[in-house]
């Protein structure tokens, strides 16, 4: 996907911030030998500098979502070769829209207005500060990068699914069968998975490496999603977090989710 004008503005914003952390290359792609850099966009001459952060985070404002819009899902799943099985048993998704009562069961009560209960709430991996999925993985195929992104190494995962039991948010999907025939249009810039491995949202680390914001953030025309460094007071997410009450899913579990909801 080619960066748009808005993306460039955001990227410019990011590059203004000097960050000390070195960029960590993805183990997953290194092992596969799959290219991680290189933009196909004619508008861009050569790759942009990678986006870096101390702690990547996302804010979600479901009230901004248009009814029945699924642009974020479509963009993410197209970018990452996520198959569409059209049945709940084999289902794989990285991002989905759920009802408030399912995303925040503890905050739900019968007097909530319909304007809230009817909202579609985008849910994805929270890239937890203290991720149980990483703790339980017996092969370190799931690991946390220095910038907080929780990553999967599809070439190491043995498919034991301990991480799926451990994730308190249902963020992970298993490839119960060969996904390739069910990927509508294969994006050659991103690896496809084999049957038998687990996968999930990667905060578009492959795009960040190319200096582009996550696909869902760019795809959302209503700006319901914002992405940035939560340690940087001038980042998009901090501009939102600093001025209102934000919720995280099941914070009492101590996982430290880094996807924040403003409702």
């Amino acid at each position, binding site marked *: 996907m080619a960066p748009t004008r808005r993306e460039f503005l955001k990227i410019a914003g990011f590059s203004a911030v000097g960050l000390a952390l070195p960029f960590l290359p993805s183990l997953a792609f290194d092992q596969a030998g799959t290219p991680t850099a290189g933009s196909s966009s004619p508008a861009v001459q050569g790759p942009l500098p990678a986006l870096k952060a101390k702690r990547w985070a996302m804010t979600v404002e479901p009230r901004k979502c248009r009814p029945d819009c699924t642009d974020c899902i479509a963009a993410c799943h197209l970018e990452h070769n996520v198959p569409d099985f059209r049945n*709940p*048993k*084999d*289902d*794989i998704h990285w991002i989905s829209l*759920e009802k408030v*009562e*399912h*995303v925040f*069961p503890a905050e739900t009560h019968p007097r909530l207005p319909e304007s809230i209960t009817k909202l579609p709430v985008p849910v994805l991996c929270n890239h937890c500060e203290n991720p*149980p999925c990483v*703790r*339980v*993985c*017996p*092969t*370190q*195929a799931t690991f946390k990068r220095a910038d907080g992104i929780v990553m999967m190494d599809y070439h*190491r*995962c*043995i*498919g*034991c*699914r*301990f991480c*799926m*039991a*451990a*994730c*308190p*948010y*249902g963020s992970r*999907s*298993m*490839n*119960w*069968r*060969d996904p390739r025939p069910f990927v509508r249009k294969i994006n050659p810039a991103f690896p496809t998975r*084999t*049957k*038998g*491995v*687990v996968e999930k949202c990667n905060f578009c680390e492959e795009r960040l490496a190319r200096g582009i914001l996550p696909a869902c953030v760019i795809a959302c025309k209503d700006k319901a999603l914002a992405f940035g460094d939560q340690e940087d007071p001038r980042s998009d997410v901090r501009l939102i977090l600093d001025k209102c009450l934000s919720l995280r899913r*099941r914070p009492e*579990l*101590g*996982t430290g989710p880094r996807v924040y909801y403003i409702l």
Partner: protein
Amino acid sequence: MLEKALRGSRGYGIWVAFLLLLVAVGFFFYLRQLDYGLGITGMSRDVSWGLYIAQFTFLVGIAASAVMLVLPYYLHDFKAFGKITILGEFLAVSAVTMCITFVFVDLGRPDRAVNLLLYPSPRSVLFWDVIVLSGYLLLNIVTGWTVLESDKKGVPPPAWVKPLIVLSIPWAVSIHTVTAFIYSGLPGRGFWLTAIMAPRFLASAFASGPALLILLCLILRRFGRFDAGDKAIQTLAKIVTYALATSIFFVLAELFTVFYSQIPGHMHHLTYLFAGLNGHHTIARWMAVSAATAVAALVLLIIPRARKNESLLALACVGVFLSLWIEKGLGLVVTGFVPSPMETITDYTPTGPETAITIGVWALGLMLITLLYKIFVSVRNEE
């Protein structure tokens, strides 16, 4: 001694052939699973562990129960168990073999199983489970076999086995504790997140394992020309009684905590398990059978006259085994996933191929038990 497994009566031959057939059928379907993927099972995104992992969990308990023979004999010199400690150890060997096979057939990428050892991850409970299970397997093969070999030669077992046998006692506790920690250490699954998980596992293991041993002893007496002795069997029966009572008590304690505190995240799972939720009743029906059988078996076991009656004892043991198999081999794993983190209820029904593979692995274990017990009986009858 191995050659002793090869010669036997006609009935023995037919039984082994029958088990081999089941193993072959299971293997055939495993090949299909390898080809298609784990989607051939009933597991889904919401219920991502099923029959395989549940069997593994149940069988770890069977394996751990060997300690109920070894401990009284080696630490308290309880002579009546002297004749049958090896049976316990061989049962452990077969059960652990089944456990490891079940974990293996549950892997999405079995070709990469070696990654478990290539990238050791001490923070993962599963890593430790693999370590303690293989250690336990090794301990029991070595001790069981060595003691039997000395028996055959008519000499006392070498001095170095005793420490290994004593080591196998805490080791047995460790395998079931670590297996319980796989579940009880997960923050988001209210059903499993309970400190009593490990004690509960141990209590139910010390009921189901010895119950199976009693049944095996009764079978050996009938068909194997080997008598474990009434004293040994009756003592085992008492162990089963106390362990079953403890196990039921633990479940009741769990039920009280959950339903008196009324925290929804914990309550929903147990409601689903025992009463059904939003019209999903399949598991609850199984659990009703499990609960009724457990209570009936407990009554039979508590009444001394019933316990001393061999047929009633056998019936009670079948009941204990069945009840705890339903509880651990069906209910425990699946219920942890229902309702899901998104509060949806997804039913899990094992598929045909999945059931065939499960039966195949059980048949493999039964075959190991048969062969090892055959060797044992042949050696003993030569003396």
